[in-house]
């Protein structure tokens, strides 16, 4: 939609925010307060589960840690609630860090179950610590006060809660729209994708986990001083599940989903409480039934939650993405100096890879000099891709050596090799379909810049951000997609996606570019264009290793060819010589063996 429209919407939002308490009863206000608190926790879940892809059944435990921390500090030691805030956040953050380091390496279902495990354990702990009033909990928690003005009254609390909620949303939005944010949105693409741009998936997930926990912590602190009474039950696994319901009902696909979801769940429960008694005596017991039924129905109509409706509506009313904010001029990022033509860049010596009994790569050796294009060819299943994964460090070698820029990189992790200056593309394209072309390419710049989650969230990263986007645009223009920078990568034809991967690889400013079947699925003209691009790169001193099927394409491009067959090197030499070679004919064209 137009910026004007969205600005007026924002204004409307602000006004609504200010006037609500004036015409709403204190009950409605305190309901809104609870919605705000729920939204904070759900927001964390949207980040962690929706964006990061790690399901958590334990957020309520973090709410509890913060709530109890502040409650304990203010009741047992009579300190100010405002001191309770940093204390609560510190405690929540530390426990999240510890739990995260312990569990975040777990995969898929195991991770989800582990969250149930600690979520359940922590909430049980609350009920068994005498200092925390065991199951009865802590009461008489002082209300917050600003100067002499106590925030005991819901209306007063309202402004605090919703200010915090607003800040939480701003922070999250800024975060996602930044360097760490792009990497976080890349998490679903898998660790290999991130490693290929020099990003560490585990550390990203960990910091995301802590961020989500801190949002829950904020909610907990507010909860404690709003209800002024804490007991274990609101922090049980059931509560965690309810927060998850909120996030899903609103829509894990968007930050606003957290707000919408929290509002939907709490308001719905409340409305049911009012409506059902008109239908039946036993309304109390019908609440949960009707609620669950409606919830299931919602997911039947919109798996993406309520926000999915909004998205559809916007699509139907043609309100697309914003006119791309015009690229502000920025200092280009420094580029590495390309080594002198001919200096050895990569050398593979006696590489061997065994999968169980099968020998996928059998004692293959070859060298690669700066400014050279080497083609690695061979029939399907010849072991090219395995070779590929060996020298990029994606999978460990059984034996042999790989030297990259006169450093022995065999046994190094993929992301370390990538940071040294090795850019790669994937045979099965690894792009983030729901991210724009620009963001996908900017992901490639990751290792060249620093901004942290905190600086990104606080918008202190704009200078670097501009330089990152500037670099990304440059690479997009280079491959001739500059004019489509804001389309979603998923909407590109497969062939173009492959080229986009090249741009992402280039954005990491590599010495060596390793391409896996870049021409597959390209039209004739596109192939010619790709060929020219690669030649131009070569002139600029880039070194390129290319695995390709399309003989026509390869023959007219590369300086040298290495032919593999059944895991071993068959021939090495100039295209013409290779083409003439009998063995190649036999192996490649399935002629007489």
């Amino acid at each position: 939609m137009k910026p004007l429209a969205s600005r007026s919407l924002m204004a409307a939002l602000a006004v609504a925010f200010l006037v609500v308490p004036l015409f709403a009863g204190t009950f409605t206000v305190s309901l809104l307060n609870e919605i705000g608190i729920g939204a904070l926790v759900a927001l964390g879940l949207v980040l962690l589960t929706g964006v990061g892809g790690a399901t958590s059944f334990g957020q309520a435990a973090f709410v509890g840690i913060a709530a109890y921390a502040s409650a304990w500090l203010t009741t047992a030691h009579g300190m100010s609630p405002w001191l309770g805030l940093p204390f609560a956040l510190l405690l929540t953050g530390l426990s999240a860090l510890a739990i995260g380091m312990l569990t975040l390496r777990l995969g898929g279902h195991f991770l989800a179950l582990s969250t149930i495990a600690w979520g359940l354990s922590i909430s049980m702990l609350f009920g068994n610590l005498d200092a925390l009033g065991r199951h009865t909990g802590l009461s008489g928690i002082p209300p917050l006060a600003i100067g002499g003005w106590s925030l005991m009254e819901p209306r007063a609390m309202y402004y605090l809660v919703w200010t915090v909620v607003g800040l939480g949303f701003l922070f999250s939005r800024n975060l996602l729209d930044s360097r760490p944010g792009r990497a976080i949105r890349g998490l679903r693409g898998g660790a290999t994708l991130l490693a290929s741009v020099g990003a560490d998936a585990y550390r990203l997930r960990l910091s995301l986990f802590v961020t989500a926990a801190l949002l829950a912590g904020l909610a907990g602190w507010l909860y404690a001083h709003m209800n002024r009474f804490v007991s274990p039950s609101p922090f049980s696994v059931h509560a965690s599940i309810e927060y998850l319901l909120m996030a899903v009902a609103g829509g894990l696909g968007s930050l606003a989903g957290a707000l919408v979801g929290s509002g939907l769940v709490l308001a719905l429960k409340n409305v049911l409480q009012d409506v059902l008694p008109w239908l039946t005596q036993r309304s109390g017991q019908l609440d949960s039934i009707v609620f669950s039924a409606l919830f299931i129905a919602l997911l039947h109509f919109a798996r993406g939650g309520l926000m999915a409706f909004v998205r559809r509506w916007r699509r139907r009313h043609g309100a697309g993405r914003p006119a791309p904010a015009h690229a502000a001029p920025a200092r280009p990022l420094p580029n590495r100096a390309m080594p002198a033509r001919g200096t050895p860049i990569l050398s593979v010596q006696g590489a061997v890879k065994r999968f169980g009994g099968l020998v996928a790569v059998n004692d293959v050796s070859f060298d690669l000099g700066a400014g050279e294009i080497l083609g690695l060819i061979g029939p399907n299943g010849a072991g090219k891709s395995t070779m590929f994964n060996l020298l990029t460090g994606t999978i460990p070698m059984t034996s042999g050596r790989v030297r990259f820029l006169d450093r022995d990189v065999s046994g190094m992790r993929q992301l370390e090799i990538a940071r040294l200056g090795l850019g790669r593309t994937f045979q099965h394209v690894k792009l983030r379909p729901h991210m724009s072309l620009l963001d996908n390419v900017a992901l490639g710049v990751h290792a060249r810049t620093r901004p942290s989650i905190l600086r990104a969230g606080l918008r202190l990263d704009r200078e670097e951000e501009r330089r990152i986007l500037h670099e990304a645009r440059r690479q997009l223009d280079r491959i001739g997609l500059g004019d489509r920078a804001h389309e979603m990568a998923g909407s590109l034809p497969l062939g173009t996606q492959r080229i986009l991967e090249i741009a992402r690889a280039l954005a990491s400013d590599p010495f060596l570019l390793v391409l896996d079947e870049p021409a597959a699925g390209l039209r004739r003209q596109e192939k010619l264009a790709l060929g020219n691009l690669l030649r131009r790169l070569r002139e600029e001193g880039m070194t390129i290793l290319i695995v390709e099927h399309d003989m026509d394409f390869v023959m007219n491009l590369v300086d040298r060819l290495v032919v593999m067959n059944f895991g071993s090197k068959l021939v090495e030499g100039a295209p013409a010589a290779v083409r003439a070679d009998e063995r190649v004919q036999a192996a490649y064209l399935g002629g007489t063996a």
Partner: protein
Amino acid sequence: MSATTGTPMLEVGDLRVAYGRVEAVRGVSIALQPGQIVSVIGPNGAGKTTLLSAVMGLLPSQGALRFEGEDLRGLDVEARVERGLCLVPETRELFGELPVLDNLRLGAYSRRLRPQALRDRLDSVYARFPRLAERRTQRADTLSGGERQMLAVGRALMSAPRLLMLDEPSLGLAPLIVREILSIVRALREDGVSILLVEQNARAALESSDFGYVLETGEIALSGDSAALSEDARVRATYLGGGADDDA
């Protein structure tokens, strides 16, 4: 064009398949006569596999799809299997944790055979692939590439298909095994099974088929009698690495 007589076994008219906004198959029309072997060749990502998946009903598609005159649209995969269509996908899709024998038995699932009939059909498959008989108790995922391909074809044969669609049967196989499989394919034709063969290995495919189509970026670039195709300059250029650079 090869002489067309009676209703074709398979008729694909202006078929379109799209992944989201991306069209992978863009208006492809092919026909296959009873008892014919037709090959579709083309580079990676040309849309060959997509084409077969659409014919099999694994992917939604637009355009005409007729099998022995019957409209296939509206029939799900399983129904098409019951009609006698059978696909051996590039990825084989075997039941890795089950022994060879079970894989074969399941192949005949759609036929609901009596034990005796089942045994007979097993024997006929074993007769064709003696290797499978030796391996019958072995888990499918412990087989070698060639054996897997045989099992995939064998499983397909268990359903007594009228049209067999093979996706890259030569994928990752040694030339010798490729020959073996292709000779079996030819033998199948003798038993009245029609075959749609998708291959990257152009020469092998054209050698063993009557008629061929060349698929490029989702469109039919060329078609004709296999013999003629294998002599065509552009085919040689693209698949046999000849230095021809004509523009199309």
